[in-house]
């Protein structure tokens, strides 16, 4: 964070503040230092930047006006939802404006016959399900922060959750968006129809980490609640056997709604914290959730139980009722928070590996932990190979947080080596942009920049994220970047 601040005069700042207040009202513009502190970071609190202003628009028109102003004055701007992201995607730009969508929190339409709910971006994820639950429907993507995270952030990060093995991630549940482009224009991509024609721009926007514009309305697909849900709990002596069970279950023709593995360290952290009833001496536990038509689930339960036994499960339990099912899940959902009870600090990593490499990767993570002298707990969405290693460290011990960060990076290298990804659901953001070249060549990252330039030629929308080095849009097409100065860089913007 060593960039120099943009040279803006106090007079200029006052003028911009006045314009913003005129547009939005005084209560929707934050400029006082003590109030700006809350917006200095997102869920990844290790990075902090104080923005120039934070604005709280209440409508698409207001967002558009603010963005037009930013465009005119060449002010970088960063969209922000609930600020729960873990990759620094909502980290402010120095001398930039944070556009918080928290006041755009209305559910605009519930259309059950067409299976569509239309929401503003500040609507909390769980509120969508709450709005349609009585009708027997729900919104499938369920990130662990779903009681606080917002749909706008979910769209930006293409959020997943524990049930995305069967039902997919956010991109599979967004039918359309209204968005304010980086020049202030408002466009609608997609809509209430499940399919679209032409270039799939919507799939570019979902997961674009706020670099292509600001989403102001989202058409969400809702799905019918399954007739039956059954949750199996299995414990294993070795985590490799839990991993082998996952592949065997899917190969048998069963796609569970979710499959989650926790290792011994995680189990004990959870038991210490919430007492979910997991066996402390198990090498790993596996949760398998099956859902669908009653007859199908009823047929799957014995089949899955047999596979678990064949793969060395010590104990297999089927949740007898909803309260026991909730208890099974309580431990898993508390896992991250539980780490705080056994370690003063922890670093959450998010990498993806092919399922078939699970044993190898876990072995390498263990070896890395030993080499760095740090404990690593493993909690992961096993069905889709999405690992969340938790690197435990003591921030009071000099150099340990740096070691934890380095170890986390090494884990990502292992993920890529085996054919995986540096992120499955948290995004690249600010935190991982330096790792993008592990997966992609310069030409490939240039190709991604072509997309960004098609939406944001000025590069003002959430600059300094995702791309490891500055890239311009000066030459349409294939010319190598680097010879021109990015406008935001001229202003001293961070990259």
């Amino acid at each position: 964070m060593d960039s120099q601040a943009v040279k803006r005069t106090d007079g200029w700042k006052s003028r911009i503040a006045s314009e913003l207040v005129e547009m939005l009202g005084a209560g929707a513009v934050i400029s006082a230092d003590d109030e700006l502190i809350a917006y200095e970071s997102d869920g990844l609190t290790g990075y902090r930047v104080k923005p120039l202003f934070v604005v709280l628009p209440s409508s698409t028109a207001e967002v558009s006006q603010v963005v037009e102003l930013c465009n005119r004055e060449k002010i970088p701007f960063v969209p922000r939802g609930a600020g729960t992201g873990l990759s620094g995607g909502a980290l402010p730009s120095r001398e930039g404006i944070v556009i918080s969508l928290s006041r755009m929190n209305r559910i605009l339409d519930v259309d059950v016959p067409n299976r569509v709910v239309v929401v503003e971006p500040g609507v909390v994820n769980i509120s969508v399900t709450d709005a349609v639950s009585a009708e027997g429907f729900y919104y499938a993507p369920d990130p662990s922060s779903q009681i606080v995270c917002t749909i706008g952030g979910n769209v930006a990060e293409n959020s997943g959750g524990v049930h995305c093995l069967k039902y997919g991630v956010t991109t599979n549940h967004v039918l359309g968006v209204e968005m304010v482009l980086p020049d202030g224009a408002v466009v609608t991509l997609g809509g209430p129809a499940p399919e679209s024609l032409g270039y799939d721009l919507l799939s570019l926007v979902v997961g674009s980490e706020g670099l292509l514009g600001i989403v102001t309305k989202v058409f969400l697909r809702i799905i019918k609640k399954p007739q039956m849900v059954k949750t199996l709990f299995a414990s294993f002596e070795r985590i490799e056997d839990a991993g082998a069970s996952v592949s065997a279950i899917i190969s048998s023709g069963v796609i569970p709604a979710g499959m989650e593995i926790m290792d011994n360290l995680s189990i004990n952290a959870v038991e210490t914290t919430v007492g979910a009833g997991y066996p402390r001496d198990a090498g790993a536990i596996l949760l398998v959730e099956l859902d669908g038509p009653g007859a199908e689930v009823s047929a799957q339960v014995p089949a899955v139980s047999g596979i678990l036994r064949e793969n060395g499960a010590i104990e297999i339990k089927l949740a007898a009722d909803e309260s026991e099912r909730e208890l099974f899940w309580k431990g898993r959902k508390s896992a991250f928070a539980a780490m705080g009870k056994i370690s003063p600090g922890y670093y959450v990593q998010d990498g993806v590996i092919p399922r078939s490499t699970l044993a190898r990767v876990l072995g390498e993570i263990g070896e890395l932990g030993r080499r760095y002298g740090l404990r690593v707990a493993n909690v992961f969405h096993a069905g889709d190979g999405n690992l969340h290693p938790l690197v435990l460290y003591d921030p009071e011990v000099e150099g340990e947080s740096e070691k934890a960060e380095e170890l986390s990076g090494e884990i990502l290298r292992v993920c890529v080596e085996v054919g995986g990804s540096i992120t499955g659901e948290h995004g690249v953001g600010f935190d991982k942009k330096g790792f993008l070249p592990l997966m992609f060549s310069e030409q490939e990252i240039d190709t991604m920049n072509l997309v960004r330039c098609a939406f944001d030629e000025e590069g003002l929308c959430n600059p300094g994220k995702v791309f490891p080095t500055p890239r311009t849009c000066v030459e349409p097409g294939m010319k190598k970047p680097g010879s021109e100065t990015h406008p935001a860089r001229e202003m001293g913007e961070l990259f």
Partner: protein
Amino acid sequence: MSHVTELSRMVSNFHVPGSGDADSGVPEFGFSSEVILYPETVEEISRILGFASQKGIRVFPFAGGTKLFLGNPVGAVGAALSLRRLGRVLFHEPSDMVSTVECGMEVREFQNAVGCENQLFPVDPPGLNSGATVGGLVSTNLCGPMSTRYGTCRELILGVRAVRADGEIINLGGKVVKNVAGYDIPKLMAGSLGTLCVLAEATFRLYPRQPFSRTLVLGFDSHVSCSQAAGAIFAADVVPTCFEILDGRLSSEFAAAPGAKRSVLLKFDSFEEAVIEQIKQVREITSGKSASFIEMGDEDSKELWDSVREFPFSSGASFSSKLTLPVTASVEILSDIESDPALSGVTVRCLSRPARGVALVSVDGDGEEAVRAARFLENLADSLGGRIMFSGIRRELRERIKAWGSFGEALFLMKNIKRRFDPGDILPGEKIFDAD
């Protein structure tokens, strides 16, 4: 040395149309090309496009040639680039249920390859049995009845290896089912009709094959009873792999439910007891609504599903259209079409795929009446909040019926994307974009 000669030297195989050594695999293009190139490696494609972009030679990529009728006609190009020599499965890890395949491979062949491991590449595009390739599948994003359960190619594609118009080879996406690193460019490729990059390889998510399958055909005497039954099925605790509604004409022509006003086709795949239970449920909820109820095994229903899959592109009509609509509109459109006087002078066939919000319509008629029908459908799609594309348009109608309805506000962004990816328009953009 002519450009054609230089291009020809970059590949092991090529064909100059009219030279008398015609390759039997070359389809009827509907556009002219000075040379047809058959690269065998992605590096050869890279050299071809690198040269073509330097010289401003337009290149049209194709593979099976089964869907060349989609999109606007392409004008003259310097070279056609056939992917047919790129036809291998490069990677298949059964325990990951992921496979990478070269884009010239036939979809059916790919399905057979992964089927050996009891796995399923769950697409059934038109042309499946007549040479449809993986590249064409991705390029058109045209899928069949199984998209009800599995979605289209856009939902299945995880990664691509492609060559940009300037010849750069790029690998985007990945080989894991969950990945949010960078923009989802593989999905952008799906449906881009080869206007952005030449696809060389694609990586897909696979599914397990299901052990038991049954087809149901329900006949109805009226649109109202059919619509009510479809709504009840949609709301029931059943998960069909395929769910189609046919109008009266198709019900008879496909021998689904001859004489019925409408028919509903359902296919279930799962454990045997689960399929039987779902059939029982459908029988109960449609009791009193359907006039006939037939249950069929795979062999008995094969011909029916073949017909459904190929519709409307095999109908030999004046034109075909695909409408993407909200779910309920995709059902009610059957009634809208039937009752509107604007379509009284033409023969219309219509199939609805409600779970996808898709209606497929073929129109047979002459001159003004066909054009009027096209306008009607375009306006209908607009008024219902949907989009429309026309295909297989008879030559004499092509001046008056364009391939695409409105793209709405997305159009200028689509043009921006095209301009960024291919500033020289080496890969013919007119497939999608009308001349300004």
